[in-house]
């Protein structure tokens, strides 16, 4: 029963903090807290969110540092205690300390992404500009939407994954970046990026940069090209330049949370 009494106290503190200018800080962030949080995570969270935190059949990826239903540690605490309406996420009956420890563990999943960056970020930024990355990618409110939004890329990819993305862009391409091609029944060739799909239609960004719906019944054939449209920089940049570019990308953390 002691455990259950602690929960309302910790939650009440979190709620009170909502009304102040400063969000409640996690008081349990030591390595030991993180380790205990990891044990709780594996027992209570991993079935849905994956043992690695990268998501599962019933729960989203928690390893990026960006969360669908929370914008800070206090929000993560609230989601764990209250659950999320309309989803499989229940509220958990753990005490406040245990929940803060889980928050620490989850935060650690994304904090670990920024390690082992050895390049020069300033030089990397110059390479970013010189190579025209912004012609395809979106960054902090400007650019193009053909490629991945890089504004918070450091929360999504590790430096090693960024290096692979630069040298072998087609190694792992998420379905939303596959190139969609089709031929209509009247013989027109169509190409674009597939944003959404149901039985009857597709919503695409077409090759002219316009949003449009395509009715499947109007198509003769369609296909998805899993290769990335991004060129490889393996032969265009040397290893030090690649490290510098990765170092710059690793600074792109998105808006402060």
């Amino acid at each position, binding site marked *: 029963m002691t455990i259950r009494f602690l929960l309302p106290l910790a939650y009440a503190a979190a709620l009170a903090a909502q009304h102040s200018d400063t969000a409640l800080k996690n008081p349990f962030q030591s390595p030991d807290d993180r380790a205990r949080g990891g044990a709780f995570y*594996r*027992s*209570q969270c*991993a*079935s*849905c969110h*994956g*043992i690695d935190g990268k*998501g*599962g*059949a*019933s729960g989203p990826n928690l390893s990026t540092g960006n969360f669908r239903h929370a914008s800070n540690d206090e929000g993560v605490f609230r989601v764990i205690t*209250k*659950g999320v*309406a*309309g*989803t*499989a996420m*229940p*509220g*958990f*009956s753990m005490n406040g300390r245990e929940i803060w420890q889980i928050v620490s563990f989850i935060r650690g999943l994304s904090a670990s992404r920024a390690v082992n960056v050895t390049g020069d970020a300033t030089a990397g930024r110059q390479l970013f500009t010189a190579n025209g990355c912004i012609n395809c990618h979106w960054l902090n409110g400007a650019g193009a939407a053909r490629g991945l939004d890089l504004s918070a890329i450091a929360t999504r990819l590790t430096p090693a994954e960024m290096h692979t993305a630069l040298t072998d862009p087609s190694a792992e391409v998420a*379905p*939303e970046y596959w190139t969609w091609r089709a031929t209509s029944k009247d013989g027109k060739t169509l190409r674009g990026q*597939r*944003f*959404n*799909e*149901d*039985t*009857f239609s597709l919503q695409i960004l077409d090759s002219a940069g316009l949003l449009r719906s395509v009715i499947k019944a109007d198509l003769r054939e369609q296909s*998805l090209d899993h290769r990335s449209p991004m060129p490889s920089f393996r032969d265009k940049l040397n290893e030090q330049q690649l490290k510098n570019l990765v170092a710059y990308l690793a600074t792109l953390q998105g808006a402060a949370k």
Partner: protein
Amino acid sequence: MRSALFLLAAALSAQDANWTTYHGNYSSTHHSALTQITPANAKNLELKWTFQAQSLEKFEATPLVVDGVMYLTEAPNTVVALDAATGREFWIYEHKNPEVTYPCCGKINRGLAIRENTLYMGTLDGKLIAIDAITGQLRWEKVVVDFKDGYALTHAPLIIKDKVLMGTAGGELGIRGFLAAFDAKTGKEIWKFKTIPEPGEPGHETWHNDAWKHGGGPIWLTGSYDPALNLTYWGVGNAGPDWNAKVRPGDNLYTSSVIALDADTGKLKWHFQFTPHDEWDWDSVQTPVLVDRVWRGRPRKLLLWANRNGYFYLIDRATGEFLQGTPFVKLDWATGLDDKGRPVRVPGKVPTPQGTVIYPGVQGGTNWFAPSYSPKTDLFYLNVWDDYSGTYFAWDQEYERGKWFAGGGIKADVQSVRRDRLARRDPKSGYGAVRALNPSTGAKVWEYKMTDVSEGGIVTTAANVLFSGNREGNFFALDATNGNLLWNMYLGGQTAASPMTYLVNGKQRVTIAVGHTLYTFGLRE
């Protein structure tokens, strides 16, 4: 309104005009005798009214309609009485649950039962409650189980004679499941059948250690009833822990089984275990469909069962004899069924610490959403999830009261419970289809293929119209004879409920919960 119903009595019984149980009838065929909406005029369907739920929880309920009044549950445990002609509310009853309850997969409720003028509902905090259907006032409430042990009551109760039958969810929280019957007037418990037999009880020998103490066996979908045999049929859910099955050697009865109980006493008449020693979380919590028809030249009382494990079964429901089992989706965990219906398992197709890819994925070939059988077409209809897999993980886990106790997890491109906001996964990672099977052979007769999967149930009518909805947000009518699309309406939200149809003021209506809204359609006039 009611006089109009009486005028129709010569052609249709009140049972045909109403929808008085979760499954529509005791045989759970999800088939209606109504014929106003036809393949020829379905294109003229239009929206008649909507009910906007205030709850943002998943809307899995199928309503009841009795003589012009609709009763439904708004998740988790609010009961609403509506005018079935207009959608206007008569009354609302709100059951207050504690802040923390223990549903595995969302704070949901699937519906109500009604007997005379009393409605019955199970609650997330382990209660069975009785509500006056006229006034919306509480008649009584009964604590069925201590919900803090991981129990939740989510399915619509089933009325048989003077009893209310109720089971309990909690297969991921280390419960021991049961089905119990309560006196409809007082709530007093009459009988109780434990789905995990205790020491000394038949079936306990299939548990070889103390794992039975938290062995699962939940019941979270309404069963069926055969009045002539006085047997009631219920599907039992997964064993616990779900995926780390090495800690519970044995077949683990009566998990992942169908049980046939004497409706008066709760005594087990027979059982059939679809998935002995279930290691995949394939609850046998599907709709037991009761059909009387000839099979191999002999009239049979059949039980048709499309199971989450990917096989479609024919069982003699009087004796429990296994008659036939045929795969209805891609599966790779078994090579077939032996002559007793026991799966012949493929070695290595089990959850592991590093993950094992297995077909079908964790939601199975189909699940709790209703199939239908039409005596007009003699076809069995269901929503399938086909050509999709899951990566199944297992790890050690100690039981703690009221805590998650699954012993593993699942990764999959096809999400189990909630659709992705934008549907752009690899189309090759799985698809959904409404499929019509020949009940005699299990062979596919036709299918209506969809891009995404569906948690929508099916209702068919005597006019050979089939209604269903899907995860994409489409609600549609098909020609039940050939699967041709007759009508489609994009409603935007995810369907995770079974549709129903009824008559009000002499007009046929069809109703479905989509997203957070209940939609009712009828023909343009």
